[in-house]
């Protein structure tokens, strides 16, 4: 939006427009953490509003807050707050916006949630349809028998 011409470039503001129309005014150095946005700026120098067609306003807000606050402590608490649905949408957003730190944080969070769980549980949580034939599945379970022993109660 308004360019404060007399100030250093790090406090220049930019507007991001989420897929549902919500607008976010962010500092340039925050926006640059999103490599996708950086590329946009490189291509069109005097752009004021950048459309983010794949990300809902609610998730873009979370992403921006993450960029501002990220550190070890914040990351550890960050991933606990979201349900599986949000985690996945945030991961898609981080991937689209090309923010490697956030992407790694969310991948770790999802990895933690499938740790020590049975395949049935993982299928249920992620709504994965099992299209293996019973023979195929049995073969894999037998081949790597050790992996299928002892899991958390669902």
């Amino acid at each position, binding site marked *: 939006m308004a360019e404060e011409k007399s100030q250093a470039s790090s406090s220049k503001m930019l507007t991001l427009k989420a897929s*549902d129309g919500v607008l976010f005014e962010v500092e340039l150095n925050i926006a640059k953490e999103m490599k996708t946005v950086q590329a946009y700026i490189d291509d069109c120098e005097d752009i004021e509003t950048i459309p983010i067609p794949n990300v*809902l306003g609610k998730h873009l807000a979370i992403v921006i807050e993450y960029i501002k606050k990220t550190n070890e402590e914040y990351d550890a608490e960050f991933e606990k707050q979201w349900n599986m*649905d949000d985690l*996945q*949408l945030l*991961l*898609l957003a981080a*991937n689209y916006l090309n923010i490697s730190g956030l*992407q*790694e944080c969310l*991948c*770790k969070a*999802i*990895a933690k949630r*499938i*740790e*020590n*769980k*049975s*395949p049935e549980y*993982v*299928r249920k949580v*992620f*709504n*994965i*349809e*099992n*299209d*293996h034939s019973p023979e*195929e*599945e049995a073969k*894999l*379970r037998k*081949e*790597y*028998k*050790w*992996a*299928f022993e002892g899991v958390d109660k669902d």
Partner: protein
Amino acid sequence: MACEEDEDRLSSLTDDILHQILSLTPTKDAVKTGVLSKRWYGLWRSCINIYFTNINLEDESSILNFNLFLSQIYYVHHFEYILFNRFYIDIQYSADPNDIISHSIPSLSQWIKYAAGARVKFLHLLLNYVHGNLHHLNSSPHLPSGVLRCKTLIVLKLRWFLVKSFPFTDKVDFPELKTLHLEDINFKTHSLFMLFLAGCPVLEDLKVANVFFLEDKTDEDDQVSASLNLSNLIRADITNCCFRFPIKTLFNLEFLRIQLSPQMYTPDDFPTFHKLTHLVINNISDLVLQMLHHCPKLQNLELYQKTQSESWDNREQGSWVVPKSAPKCLSSYLRRCTIRDFALQDLHQDIMLARYILNNAGLLQTMTIWSDKEKHEIEIELSSCPRASATCQISVS
């Protein structure tokens, strides 16, 4: 927006993202994803990492089953030329030590040699032995020689090993190692331990807990100790090592946790810690105030008495001696002070120490006391004490 609650979103992520998730997942769980659906059948094969946690091996047969799985993963890993960054193994044994040494260690050793060749960067080899009252350090396995061949390591964590010599080479050489954690390690000589540290020139983070020596210290050991250079070290955590660590070499630290027994250390051992802002001392004695004189920029001080084994050093009963001069950090830098196990051995001395700090710490923001005894009396004594910092908050729990 249409409700997308029931969509299989995870599977709609690209293969690259799923690989990233699987490479952060414990090996066991990553392999299991093969049965989720056809899409997932082969995904794990190209990104499988060595990441084993919460493994319990109770007898020979469980060790052999685990070895079989390890060799299966080896073939996948080898076949797919997977890049090798992380090698994390955390195993608890309650099997017979002979079985551990003859069946489990060789299998792990082979993997470590392979990891060394594949330029692994992060290696955690954490073993543990749980079997009644048997003193487990006596049966610890030899450190696999492959570990010393992993020259590309940035992080190395080891637990429950015996180091008798450095095979194949005379020295340890980890030119890029930044983090080293050693726990439950038995070194044959003091020199071996010093040489291990000397082989890590860019080390920034050191943790040493439960390190013992088979042989007594010699003069030669003292020489090696005196020439040790750890000037890049930023964090050090040294507990339960029954020997005098050459603290003089730690002068660049920002964080230090140390067990300061008066039997082992004297103020002559302390350098000036120019950058130390956070200090945690296990053991309350006269050495605490002496140490403070050597930490001009200290902001955060923590004291506690109990150790991991819930035991504590016996303290000399004595009377409080008012120090001649207040340590500089008290007046100009100290912001937080935490004292745990307060009044564990000597209520009066601990109160005198706390009062002394309150009297002199001009910038102190919080004084936190943790105690199992006499909370009421402690509260009265401390809140009535004149404070150098008007904004200081005291809490007793």
